[in-house]
């Protein structure tokens, strides 16, 4: 199993450009998440999905869009890149858990995005 894979690893964008960050998992996990991590900070949830066709906003969704057409893929779209979106982006996935259980979130290696 490859686990959670993300592409690209690095990207530099100009202000106003658009791009899609790709995320794929091969573990048949229902839940998928996008986080961003700014320098010296923890992770903030951008969007998440509980299954194909279902997405919802996290803490910091402005400036981003997502879609979930398959269980495996959860791309993140930046429409009009701004310097404030310079960050490292992590995708993660997990199985749904029962009320008292927790199924670990598995993280991808991250995409480092710089907007100039």
């Amino acid at each position: 199993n490859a686990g959670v894979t993300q592409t690209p690893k690095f990207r530099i964008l100009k202000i106003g450009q658009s791009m899609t960050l790709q995320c794929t998992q091969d573990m048949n996990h229902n839940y998928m998440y996008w986080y961003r991590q700014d320098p010296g900070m923890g992770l903030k949830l951008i969007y998440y999905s509980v299954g194909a066709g279902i997405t919802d906003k996290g803490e910091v969704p402005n400036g981003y869009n997502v879609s979930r057409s398959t269980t495996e893929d959860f791309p993140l779209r930046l429409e009009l890149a701004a310097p404030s979106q310079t960050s490292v982006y992590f995708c993660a996935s997990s199985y749904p858990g029962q009320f008292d259980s927790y199924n670990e979130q598995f993280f991808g290696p991250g995409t480092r995005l710089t907007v100039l």
Partner: protein
Amino acid sequence: EDKVVQSPLSLVVHEGDTVTLNCSYEVTNFRSLLWYKQEKKAPTFLFMLTSSGIEKKSGRLSSILDKKELFSILNITATQTGDSAIYLCAVRLIQGAQKLVFGQGTRLTINP
């Protein structure tokens, strides 16, 4: 607003020292608290704590939760250079999809 605060933000110690990392939280609908270790790239899961006063242990690492005072500590004894990393605390909320609210992390550096 749900909030998780870690301290210190940065810590430098010598190999062999014992360190204590702190995590306090103010959230509605608390379900559990998790600790992650982040080296160069993605975070890796260390512990999940749900009940107060029950210590979780894995080798030289241990952690405990106090749900009355709303905090957790992560202890690392006999530190090694390989323990150098960012340690992240996160709170899992009762709402669905196992969403996590992360603290800002503690950057731990172990010098030989």
